[in-house]
């Protein structure tokens, strides 16, 4: 014979089972001495518990006055705390705003640094300077070329810069005049 567990018997003693389980358990208990004794034990226990409901002698009027006074005190204390809360919240909100603003600044700054176009390298591989008869030639790519010719000049000084210009300075041996030429690619 399979017995109901203790929880079922405990609930059965207080009529706390659902209708079907109550019927099943009652049927079993009616035929089982052991379970019947268990249920009787729980019933006996339940009969003792209402003694805990007895109240000591209490001065209700005094207690009412004390409870009212203390409730009033508690509510007023709560109001004090609540009225201080917005200030506390405001300072917290201020700090939060500062932290949020700083975070946004850091983010924007970071983005600017990351997004800033890197300086493009000027590929000079295709630019070349070559000496020619009575002068120099500057060639950029396949189509652009500059030539600076100083026919008959001696000790001509040439200079070049990274922007694609070049110049020369020389002294005419016959007249003694100094000539300075500067040429550059149009942008």
């Amino acid at each position, binding site marked *: 014979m399979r017995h109901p567990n*203790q*929880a*079922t018997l*405990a*609930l059965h*003693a*207080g009529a*706390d089972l659902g209708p079907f389980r109550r019927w099943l358990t009652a049927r079993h208990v009616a035929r089982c001495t052991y379970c019947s004794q268990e249920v009787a*034990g*729980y019933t006996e*226990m*339940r009969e*003792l*518990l*209402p*003694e*805990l*409901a*007895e*109240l*000591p*002698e*209490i001065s*209700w009027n005094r*207690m*009412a006055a*004390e*409870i*009212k006074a*203390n*409730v*009033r005190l*508690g*509510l007023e204390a*709560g109001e004090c705390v609540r009225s201080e809360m917005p200030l506390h919240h405001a300072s917290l909100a201020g700090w939060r705003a500062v932290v949020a603003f700083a975070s946004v600044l850091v983010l924007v700054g970071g983005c600017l640094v990351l997004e800033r176009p890197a300086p493009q390298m000027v590929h000079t591989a295709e630019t070349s300077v070559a000496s020619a008869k009575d002068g120099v030639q500057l060639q950029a790519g396949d189509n652009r070329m500059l030539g600076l010719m100083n026919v008959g000049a001696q000790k001509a000084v040439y200079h070049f810069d990274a922007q694609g210009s070049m110049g020369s300075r020389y002294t005419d041996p016959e007249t003694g005049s100094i000539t300075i030429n500067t040429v550059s690619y149009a942008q």
Partner: protein
Amino acid sequence: MGTTVLIGMSDVIEPGLELQERQNRFVSQHFRRIFVQIYHVVQNVADAQDLTQEAFIKALQHQEQLKDENKAAHWLSRIATNTAIDFLRRSGRATFCELDEAPESHSESPEQILLRSEHREYLEDGLRLLSARERAALIMRDVEGLPADEVAERMNCSKATVRSHIANGRTKFRRYMERRKR
């Protein structure tokens, strides 16, 4: 057991009356029932009084949460039950009933008072073995005689959970009684 006065919050806290007066009326009309309810769980007058005050303060501070005014008494009972359960959990101890607080009748002899006090202490020792929720459920069901549905409502849990608490409470309490008999 204290009388249950089902009274709506608006009946108690009528507009136009001084707030303090309305709150006092609310406390006056419910404190006895709430005190008894809490006392049954904690079994100590001083603790029950403190917890009654705490329950009223919580209720009055959050009265805007009460949506259905007809359920003010139930709502207050639920707050009281939770306050008592929280107390038992917090304190982690059972409270003793002082001898001079013990229920007494003027017709009883000192020996009878002592015997009854001992018996009460015996029952309270058994309650100590239960968890806070088992204890509250058992008290409400077997001491106050509330139906399991109402216990579930007060404890804000399902009926199945309450049945489980009640079954565990009864089983533990009975084992305790058997051990003490030996």
